[in-house]
């Protein structure tokens, strides 16, 4: 049987040391969401070079990929996207009433799995020709 706790509002960031797993999940999901929506607009802006012709598109994408900082930003984007996906699955489960008792553990599992996937992906993201 689950219990209810009065932990105050999650918007009161000054109390962050007292936050529970569910509160951190809410904050991280919101943060990763802001990053992803910001990236979506940037992504379409970069891909808009396709309107300027094949050569402009290819040279822009390959030019960006040649920069080490872009590779690191892509690893960051992967981390943000993987966490948002895994925690999103967790949220869908919570909304369906599945595994409510383990919602804190599933948050920790999302974090650990995100870390594992990102670390395993670093060689792929940093591989290939750089400037």
């Amino acid at each position, binding site marked *: 049987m*689950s219990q*209810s*706790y009065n*932990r105050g509002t*999650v*918007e009161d960031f000054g109390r962050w040391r007292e936050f*529970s797993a*569910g*509160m951190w*999940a*809410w904050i991280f999901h*919101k943060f990763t*969401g*802001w990053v*992803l*929506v910001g990236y*979506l*607009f940037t992504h*379409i802006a970069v*891909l*808009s070079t*396709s*309107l300027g012709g*094949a*050569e402009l*598109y*290819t040279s822009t*994408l*390959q030019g960006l*990929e*040649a920069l080490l900082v872009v590779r690191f930003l*892509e690893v960051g984007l*992967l981390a943000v*996207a993987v966490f948002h*996906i895994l925690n*999103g*699955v967790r*949220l*869908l489960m*919570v*909304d369906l009433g599945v595994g*409510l*008792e383990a*919602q*804190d553990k599933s948050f920790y599992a999302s974090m650990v799995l995100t870390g594992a996937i990102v670390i395993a*992906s670093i060689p*792929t*993201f940093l*591989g*290939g*020709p750089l400037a």
Partner: protein
Amino acid sequence: MAEHYSSFERGGRRWLLQRLTAVFLIGVLAFHFLLLHFANHAADITFAGTQARMSQVGYFATMWLFLVTATFHGVNGVYNALVNQGIAGTQKTAVKWGLVVAGLLLVAQGTRVALAMNGFL
């Protein structure tokens, strides 16, 4: 019940649409990353390769739906986050229509990009 934090009013229309688009996006976002970072390395992307993929009707339709659902999910998420933070009245109306216009512009530009990629434009 265990603690549950959400910026959405559960059971509402915006909540439901956010969940429905989430189910689609979970699969397509993972596919997008796997295809363009693992199956094909991002550094090797060329216009010819993009055009070859976008010339397939199924891929084109999936990517366009990806654009529309991701835009809705993102813009709806931002709107609900701001409503959850307490915006109201004129501020809420201005944010709502600002996000609607931004979302429509993004879908319009994304559609132009998709059509340029498959050689239609």
